[in-house]
C-alpha cells in the first residue's frame, strides 16, 4: 500500500491495484492505517525510570545506564540471566539483528517473542509436518482456485479481507467453503457446511463416521484444498498436527497439495520466526524466562507490549519485578510505563526493510515519513550498545543486514534483491513424509456447559495500531468483562444480561457477569482469555503445550449457577 503524506505527516492510505495480494483491496484497519501514524502518543526521547519517576534523558545518558545495568548482570549472574524479546512488529532485518545481538554480543540463548502464547504452536506444528524451516506454504492469489476451503474460526474469513476476498471468489466459482467454529452459530450463505467442532475435536470428528455431514469428506479430499486459520488460536501444536495428518491421509496419493494460510494479527509473525526469534539450544522461552523461579534478571524488549500479551498473572508479576527492563518501542505502552529504560525507535512507516507475509512473500518497506523526535533505528541502537559492551555488530545499513540474512538463511537467499513491490515468494515447503499424530477422542460431560477460552491476548482492541487510531478505536471498543452465553440458555437458568454467575470446573471456580449473545451455540460459554483473573479462577494454571512449552487454556466443562 501507499501511505500518502504531505512530507511530514500521513494523510491517507491507498492500496495498490497491481499488487498480487491486495489488488486494490484492504481491510478497514488497512484503509485507516494512516491514523496511528499521526498519533502523538509516541516515545520521542530516551527515558530513565527511578521508582515511579520517569525522566527524559539524552541518548548518551541512556546508553551509559544500559551499559552499567547489563555489565552488572553479566558479571554477577552471567549471560543466561538476560532475555531478549524480538517482535512480529519489527522488520526481518531488525529481528535478524536482534537475534545476532543475543548470540554474539550478550551470548545468551534466551530469545523469544510474545507469539510464544499465540502463533508459536502453529508454526512448530507446521515445521513438524513440513521439512523443517518453513518456506511458502500457500498462495493468497490462488486460493480462489481451491476446490474446497476449510476455515478454522469465523475470523479467518472476516478479519483478513485479502484472504476473505479470495474465499468469496472461490465460492462464486463453485468451491465448497466449510467452516469449523465452536463459538458462533451464525450461518452465512457462502458456507456449504458449518461444523461446531473446535480444533481440539475436529480431527476426531473428521475420522468418526456420522460425526460430520455428508459431503464434507468428499470436499476435503481434493488436491489443492485450502486450509485457513489464525495462528493465535492453535494450541497445543498437536491439535494442528492431528488435523494435518487426517487431511493429508485423505488427499490423493499422487497429489498432496494443500493451500495453507496461517494468518496472524501482527504483520511479521513468519519473518520474526524465520529470523531466529526463538530460544537457542539451551535457551529459555518467554514463559520460562518469566517463571517465578527463573534466573532471568534483565529483559530487553524490542517493539512489543509484553505486558498486554502475557496469559498469567504470575508472569506479569515476574516482569514487574525484574532488575532491569529495557524497552525500545514507538508508542507509550503498558510495558514501557514500567520499564527502567525506554528508547524511541521509528515506526515501520519510517523505516526500510522487509517483512514476510502469511504465504511466505517477502515484501519491501520504504520509509514514507521522516523519523519523529529523537528516535533511532534498531541498527544504530544495538550497534551502540554492542560497542559499549566491547563487542561489534558490523553492519552499517539495512542493505548490509539483508545481505547477511540472505547468506545465512537458505530460504531467504534471494531477498537481497527484493526490491520489487510485489515481493519475492520463498521457495515452497516440502512435506516431511507421512505426517502422523495420535488422535484422542474428546471427553464429553453430559449436562454441563462447554467453556471455550479463545486466545484474545492479541485481539484487535488490544492492538497498539488500533488504540492509536480514533476511528478504529470506535470500531473495536474495549470489551467489558462478560461470559458470552446463548439467550435461551440464560432464560432456562433465569438469568438476565449482566447478572453474575458462578462457573465451576474441575480446576476451580470464578464469578463473572454474563453477556447475552445469540450467535453463541446452546450449552456453550465463551470467555476471552485476556480476563486473566477470571480465567485463572476457573481454569487454574492452564495446560502447557509440550512442544512449545507454552501455556494455553483448553476447553473445559463447567456448571453455571446464579449467584
Amino acid at each position: 500500500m501507499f501511505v500518502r503524506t504531505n512530507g511530514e505527516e500521513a494523510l491517507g492510505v491507498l492500496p495498490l491495484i497491481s499488487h498480487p495480494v491486495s489488488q486494490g483491496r484492504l481491510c478497514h484497519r488497512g484503509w485507516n492505517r494512516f491514523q496511528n501514524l499521526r498519533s502523538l502518543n509516541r516515545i520521542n526521547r530516551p527515558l530513565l525510570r527511578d521508582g515511579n519517576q520517569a525522566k527524559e534523558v539524552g541518548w548518551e545518558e541512556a546508553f551509559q545506564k544500559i551499559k552499567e545495568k547489563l555489565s552488572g548482570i553479566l558479571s554477577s549472574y552471567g549471560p543466561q540471566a538476560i532475555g531478549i524479546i524480538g517482535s512480529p512488529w519489527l522488520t526481518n532485518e531488525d529481528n535478524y539483528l536482534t537475534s545476532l545481538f543475543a548470540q554474539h554480543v550478550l551470548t545468551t540463548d534466551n530469545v523469544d517473542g510474545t507469539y510464544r502464547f499465540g502463533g508459536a504452536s502453529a508454526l512448530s506444528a507446521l515445521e513438524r509436518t513440513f521439512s523443517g524451516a518453513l518456506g511458502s506454504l500457500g498462495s493468497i492469489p490462488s486460493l480462489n482456485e481451491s476446490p474446497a476451503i476449510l476455515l478454522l474460526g469465523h475470523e479467518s474469513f472476516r478479519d483478513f479481507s485479502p484472504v476473505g476476498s479470495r474465499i468469496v471468489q472461490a465460492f462464486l466459482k463453485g468451491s465448497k467453503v466449510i467452516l469449523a467454529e465452536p463459538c458462533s452459530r451464525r450461518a452465512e450463505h457462502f458456507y456449504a457446511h458449518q461444523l461446531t467442532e473446535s480444533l481440539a475435536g475436529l480431527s476426531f470428528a473428521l475420522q468418526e463416521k456420522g460425526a460430520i455431514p455428508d459431503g464434507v469428506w468428499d470436499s476435503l479430499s481434493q488436491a489443492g484444498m485450502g486450509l485457513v486459520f489464525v495462528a493465535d488460536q492453535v494450541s497445543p501444536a498437536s491439535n494442528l498436527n492431528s488435523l494435518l495428518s487426517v487431511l493429508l491421509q485423505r488427499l490423493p496419493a499422487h497429489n498432496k497439495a494443500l493451500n495453507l494460510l496461517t494468518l496472524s494479527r501482527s504483520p511479521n509473525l513468519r519473518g520474526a520466526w524465520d529470523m531466529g526469534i526463538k530460544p537457542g539450544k539451551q535457551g529459555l522461552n518467554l514463559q520460562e524466562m518469566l517463571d517465578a523461579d527463573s534466573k532471568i534478571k534483565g529483559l530487553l524488549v524490542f517493539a512489543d507490549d509484553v505486558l498486554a500479551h502475557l496469559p498469567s498473572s504470575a508472569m506479569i508479576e515476574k516482569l514487574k519485578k525484574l532488575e532491569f527492563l529495557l524497552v525500545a518501542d514507538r508508542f507509550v505502552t503498558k510495558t514501557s510505563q514500567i520499564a527502567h529504560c525506554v528508547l524511541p525507535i521509528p515506526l515501520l512507516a519510517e523505516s526500510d526493510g522487509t517483512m514476510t507475509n502469511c504465504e511466505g512473500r517477502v515484501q519491501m518497506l520504504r520509509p514514507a515519513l521522516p523519523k519523529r523526535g529523537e528516535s533511532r533505528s534498531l541498527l544504530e541502537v544495538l550497534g551502540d550498545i554492542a560497542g559499549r559492551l566491547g563487542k561489534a555488530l558490523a553492519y552499517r545499513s539495512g542493505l548490509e543486514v539483508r545481505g547477511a540474512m540472505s547468506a545465512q538463511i537458505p530460504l531467504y537467499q534471494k531477498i537481497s534483491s527484493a526490491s520489487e513491490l510485489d515481493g519475492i515468494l520463498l521457495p515452497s515447503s516440502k512435506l516431511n513424509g507421512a505426517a502422523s499424530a495420535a488422535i484422542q477422542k474428546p471427553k464429553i460431560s453430559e449436562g454441563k456447559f462447554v467453556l471455550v477460552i479463545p486466545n484474545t491476548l492479541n485481539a484487535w482492541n488490544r492492538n497498539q495500531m488500533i488504540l492509536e487510531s480514533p476511528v478504529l478505536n470506535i470500531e473495536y471498543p474495549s470489551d467489558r468483562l462478560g461470559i458470552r452465553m446463548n439467550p435461551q440458555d440464560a432464560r432456562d437458568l433465569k438469568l438476565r444480561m449482566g447478572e453474575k454467575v458462578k462457573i465451576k470446573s474441575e480446576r476451580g471456580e470464578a464469578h463473572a457477569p454474563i453477556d447475552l449473545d445469540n450467535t453463541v451455540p446452546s450449552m456453550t460459554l465463551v470467555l476471552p482469555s485476556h480476563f486473566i483473573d477470571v480465567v485463572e479462577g476457573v481454569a487454574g494454571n492452564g495446560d502447557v503445550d509440550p512442544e512449545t512449552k507454552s501455556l494455553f487454556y483448553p476447553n473445559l466443562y463447567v456448571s453455571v449457577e446464579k449467584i
Partner: protein
Amino acid sequence: MDTYLLKKTDLPRWVELIQKSNDVFAPSRVQGEVFFSPISFPPDLDLLTGTATLPYLPPKDFVFPQAEELFSFSQQGEEVKLEVPKISGRGTVLLGIRSCDITGIGWMDKFYQENFKDFYYTRRRENLTFISIACNQPVKNCFCVCCEGGPFLDPEHDEFDIQLVDLKENYLVESKSEKGKKLIALAPELFLKSAPSVKEIRDQLEEKSRQSFLTEPTSYMSFAIRRITENSVPPEVWTELGERCFDDGGCTFVCPCCSCFGVGYLSEGGKGCHYRFWDSCDYSGFTREVSGHNPRGEKGERFKRRFYHKLSYQYIKRDGRIGCVGCGRCITACPGEVGMPAVVERIRNSKAQRNYQSGKPEESLG
C-alpha cells in the same frame, strides 16, 4: 458555451501558462498506479486520451482530503490559542479528470455547499478548476452510462469548466464556466474556431462510446431504484449482501460521491489539533450510540442503508440524481464482490417481497 479546437501539440504550452498562477495536477503513473500528481513536462499524453483512465483515488481528495486539520490549539498559562490552518492562495487546476468524477464533484458541492457552506470544503473548491476529458472508450469497470455520469458531459445540462473531446490530432474544447473561460483567455491564440461539422463528429464519438460499454457491469439502475424506493427488496437479500461486506469502507473511500466524515483530535502537553477524516457507513461504529446500542448493528441493515441513500427516490428528489456516477471504483475496492453493479443485479434477480401499490405480498415485480 464556447467551442474551439486545440492542437494536442499545443497542450504543453497552454499548461505552462496555466502553471504561472495555478498548481496543475494530471493523471500520472507512480510505480504502475495512476494518481493525480503535479503535472510533469512533457505531460504524459497517453493518460490524456479518450480512453477512460481513472486514478483509483477520486478527485474528492482535493476538496475533502482523507485527513484534514480543522484547527490547532495551544495553551500558554491562562491563554488558549486557536488557529485554523492556512491553505495556499494559488489556484489548482485538475487536467484529465473524467466526466464521472466531475459529476461526483457536483454531488459533493450539493452536500457541502447547498444549505450550509462548509468553510473547509468551500475554500478549496473555490480555488479549483477542472479540465475534463470525455471518454470515447470506456474501460472494464465503467458503467457511467447507467448513472448519467458520462461518458460525455452534456453542455446543456451538466455543470463543468472545460471539457476536452479527443479528436486524435486535436481536442475539441468546450468551455462553459467563467473559470474555464479565464483559462482559455490565458492563450487565446492556441484556441482555433471549430467548424460546425466538428459537432457532428463529437456526437458520433459520444454515441459510439455509449455503444461500447460492456454488458457487465452495466446495470439496471432504474429497477433497483424502484425496488429500493418501494422497500420491496426482501430482507434476506440485504442479509446476504451484508454477509459479503467486510466492513472495510473501501467502497466509500474511493466513491466520488461519499461525503461522510468523523472528527478526531490529537493532543499532547497542552497542544494539539482537531481533524476530520473520511468515515464510512459500512462501519459498525458509524451509528453505534454511546449506550452501546446500535440501530444498525447488523451488517445487512448497514448495507441496506448505504444503498437506500445511494438509490432511493427520496434522495434523488432532494439531490437531483442518484448517489452513484458509475466510475466502477467500488468494483475494484470490494473484497466481497458486492460493488454497485453486483448489488443492482442481485436486487433484479430477487423476488419482490411485497408490492405497496397492489398490496399483494410476494408478488414478483420482475
